[in-house]
């Protein structure tokens, strides 16, 4: 798999896929998409990078350990539910704010925060399993 062509294109492909995964994540609130599918796309991006260039560069590119990313995502996801406590509504109630940034109204919500958490959980877990399998291949 480690041909020159693949190794040259893989970083670009990976960055494009990560970008696309974030697009899918943000699109997901009202249209098809969301944190789970976005996380899967991002995880496959890193898996492709791993196939092309080996696992150590992927670990360097991710900076944090995949399981730490998953843990952070779980924390963010659970936190999105707890915000309801301070708003006086039941657990996991969707709360919206509409700040206006540079004249553009942006809808921010706890479901979005939850989705980002899901994105990180899926990215972390799947990347961890995929990298684990790829690493073992070499032994």
């Amino acid at each position, binding site marked *: 798999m480690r041909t020159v062509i693949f190794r040259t294109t893989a970083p670009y492909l990976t960055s494009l896929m990560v970008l696309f995964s974030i697009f899918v994540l943000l699109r997901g609130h009202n249209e098809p998409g969301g944190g*789970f599918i976005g996380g899967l796309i991002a995880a496959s991006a890193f898996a492709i990078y791993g196939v092309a260039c080996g696992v150590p560069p992927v670990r360097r590119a991710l900076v944090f350990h995949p399981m730490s990313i998953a843990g952070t995502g779980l924390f963010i996801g659970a936190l999105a539910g707890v915000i309801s406590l301070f708003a006086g509504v039941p657990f996991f109630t969707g709360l919206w704010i509409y700040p206006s940034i540079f004249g553009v109204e942006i809808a921010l919500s706890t479901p979005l925060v939850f989705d980002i958490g899901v994105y990180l959980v899926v990215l972390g*877990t*799947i990347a961890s*399993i995929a990298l*684990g*399998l790829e690493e*073992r291949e070499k032994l």
Partner: protein
Amino acid sequence: MEVALSALIGIFFMTAVYLMLSPHIIRILLGVVVLGNAVNLLIFTNGRLTREVPPIVPDDVIVAAPTIANPLPQALVLTAIVISFSFFAFLLTLAYRAYQELDTDDTDTMRIAEPADEAAPPTGY
């Protein structure tokens, strides 16, 4: 339509059970995957099949049209797919790891945790 899907689910279950009865882990794993898909189809069919109207409420109305598809089975199936996918990933790693370490994927010869020739407990001091 329900009848056709029921028959299909039956075939899925049949295949899954057949595969899971094998002593080889990889076949059991494939059986579990087929079983997961059979269950997803089953939940989907249990939510009753309707014409293909997606359960999305348009922006300009508050109450959806009465003929939309039932969204709940779709949510359940989605959850089940996510869970079975992550379990598949885990079990694949586990099976691969077990194959490497124990040099077999035959569950009949996997007797390290429960040795076949274990002696009976002592009857006295």
